[in-house]
């Protein structure tokens, strides 16, 4: 049995930050990660096995065998899924988590994103709620994340949209041809643009070099280590203290309690042996699906429904992001190969739209792998084989632009993670069972944003536009959130305003699970900021 001050479960964006902050605060930390620690060379540039195109697997786990989940569709049909299959809602299982191979968009949520219920009211059937904290509570931690992990962006454009005390530490990454074209279109429409903030070094920063503008950013690891996440910043800092022990290929089975109080965890190590680890404080950062699963699997006589689940709230309100967008065949080439690719966003439709709830950011696209272009970007009426398909690829790979973005989802209590009564993983642990869908209002807002995407492409010179608005479905994916949401009332939330599980002053959550709503933006900056905030609170608590 090991003993530390703190155990952190999951070495992703949030867990790496929490572990680093607590180690630097003088605590001894055990960080437990189910995946491996992979160097750049260990993460292949395999176009058929990555988190952008996973038809035949992933480059950063989880392994395809032994990690099933069960999906229940809207007709009640059950499917046992492997990690690379559609609807599994996968995220990378590796030290660094999804952020090891992410696109690194570094958005703050807007002040209004924390007050959705007050602004829009609560649609029937939804669990829409305000956060118990405001933008002002998170702002100092956003700033800390931007500086300690490293964000490039346009400080003035950002300050026109977000109250902020300090600019970004680095200017935006270079503009490419796609960005020039869509900015021209936005200008014609009178839509103000903002350079997409990225957790990518546009200049040398943090002892690591600047981005070399390669074509394999999203879905892959950075060849020069210019992409910033917790594993190459806070986790590295934490390890440098000598107080942080990282255990990999280890699956946490349950949070252990004695007399109802959290005392540590039980995990299965890489040799398949069950180990007990003990600590004063436990921080869960396994991602919104796996954190919920872990809480539900942590049953005891005092907590027969699992930890934090006395009110049947754990695992509910699962959300991610709908991604409405459209493709345009442009009148000029837009691909010049300058990565990461995404450059330019519109944020005027995040709020204040007539007749829909909320909205979302919309932006241009990362450099698209050729096989992804073939699989997803071709016009729907184009025959997928024969001379015509080859000709379209040849003539138009450089001429198709895509704009799209994350819509703020309206949560449903029925979109949820439970435990499957039959299916178990390779360690014999009950797996996550996913059921329900987002609220229909999410679909309406997505249709509105789809129309804006078409409008933007048309103004940018598209000769032809295609793409469809998304349909009602379960959402989660890499932006998964909401399953242990914050609130002041334990009857309708799982964690308190400090990300502590209600009723447990030594059990924290440091991933997207705590998000009450998920913003109309990529969530990672908020996950990291709240991990800083929770870890700082934990460090001060004893």
């Amino acid at each position, binding site marked *: 049995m090991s003993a530390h001050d703190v155990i952190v479960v999951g070495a992703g964006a949030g867990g790496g930050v929490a572990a680093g902050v607590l180690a630097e605060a003088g605590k001894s930390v055990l960080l437990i990660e189910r995946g491996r620690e992979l160097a750049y060379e260990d993460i292949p540039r395999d176009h058929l096995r990555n988190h952008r195109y996973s038809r035949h697997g992933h480059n950063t786990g989880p392994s395809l065998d032994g990690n099933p989940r069960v999906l229940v569709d809207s007709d009640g049909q059950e499917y046992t899924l492997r990690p690379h299959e559609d609807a599994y809602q996968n995220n990378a299982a590796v030290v660094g988590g999804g952020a090891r191979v992410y696109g690194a968009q570094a958005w703050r949520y807007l002040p209004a994103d924390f007050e959705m219920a007050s602004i829009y009211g609560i649609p029937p059937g939804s669990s829409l709620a305000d956060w118990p904290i405001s933008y002002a509570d998170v702002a100092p931690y956003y700033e800390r994340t931007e500086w300690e992990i490293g964000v490039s962006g346009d400080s003035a454009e950002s300050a026109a949209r977000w109250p902020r005390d300090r600019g970004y530490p680095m200017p935006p990454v270079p503009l490419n041809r796609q960005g020039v074209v869509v900015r021209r279109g936005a200008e014609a429409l009178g839509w103000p643009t903002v350079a997409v903030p990225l957790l990518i070094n546009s200049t040398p920063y943090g002892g690591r070099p600047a981005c070399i503008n390669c074509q394999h950013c999203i879905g892959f690891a950075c060849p020069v280590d210019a992409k910033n996440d917790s594993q190459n910043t806070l986790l590295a800092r934490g390890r440098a203290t000598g107080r942080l022990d990282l255990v990999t290929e280890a699956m946490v089975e349950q949070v252990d309690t004695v007399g109802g109080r959290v005392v540590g965890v039980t995990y299965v190590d890489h040799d398949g042996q069950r180990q007990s680890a003990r600590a004063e404080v436990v921080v869960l950062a396994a991602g919104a699906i796996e954190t919920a699963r872990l809480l539900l699997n942590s049953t005891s006589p005092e907590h027969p429904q699992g930890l934090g689940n006395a009110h049947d709230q754990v695992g509910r309100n699962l959300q991610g992001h709908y991604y409405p967008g459209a493709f345009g065949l442009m009148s000029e080439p837009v691909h010049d190969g300058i990565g990461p690719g995404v450059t330019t966003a519109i944020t005027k439709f995040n709020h204040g739209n007539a007749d829909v709830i909320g909205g979302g950011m919309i932006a241009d696209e990362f450099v698209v792998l*050729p096989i992804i272009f073939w699989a997803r970007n071709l016009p729907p009426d184009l025959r997928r084989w024969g001379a015509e398909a080859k000709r379209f690829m040849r003539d138009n790979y450089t001429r198709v632009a895509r704009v799209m973005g994350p819509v703020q989802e309206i949560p449903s209590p029925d979109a949820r993670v439970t435990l499957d009564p039959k299916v178990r993983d390779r360690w014999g642990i009950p797996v996550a069972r996913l059921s329900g869908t987002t609220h229909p209002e999410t679909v309406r807002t997505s249709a509105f944003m789809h129309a804006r995407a078409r409008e933007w492409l048309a103004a940018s010179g598209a000769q032809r536009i295609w793409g469809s608005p998304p349909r009602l479905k379960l959402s989660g994916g890499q932006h998964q959130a909401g399953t242990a949401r914050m609130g002041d009332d334990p009857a309708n939330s799982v964690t308190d305003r400090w990300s502590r599980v209600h009723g447990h002053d030594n059990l924290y959550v440091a991933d997207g699970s705590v998000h009450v709503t998920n913003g109309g933006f990529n969530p990672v900056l908020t996950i990291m900021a709240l991990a800083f905030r929770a870890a700082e609170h934990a460090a001060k608590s004893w």
Partner: protein
Amino acid sequence: MTSASEVAEIVTVLTESQRETLRALIDRIIPADDFPGGWDAGVGDYLDRQFAADLRPLIEMYRAGLDALGHEARATTGSDFAQVAPEAQDEVLRRVEAGDVATDWSVDPAAFFRTVVEHAAEGYYGDPGNGGNRDGVSWQMIGFEVTG
């Protein structure tokens, strides 16, 4: 990575006749023009590797589908698929794609065809490390250049 012994093993996966049909099929899915067709660009090599790996569970479907395509061509054109003129091959394939076949198929013709089309694209447009897209020829064709 696929070992040499695995590759050597899987050339026996298909009969000579099935491989002839497969080659002709791949070259209609991605025909040659001033850039190579699917087979010359290495789609067959991609499939060789994948039959020993991810596509192992689909080998039976490939065998059955290729045999059925051979029967279909003989029944509707009087010749083996690989011996039919390209225009007539395309005519057969359009009917297969639509599921509008003249003979008995032991696999769903439309699903078989859709699957082979997808795998051909993976071999042609995927990274050369997967065994196809020889020398990155499809990337040169479309303008995808790897600079770093």
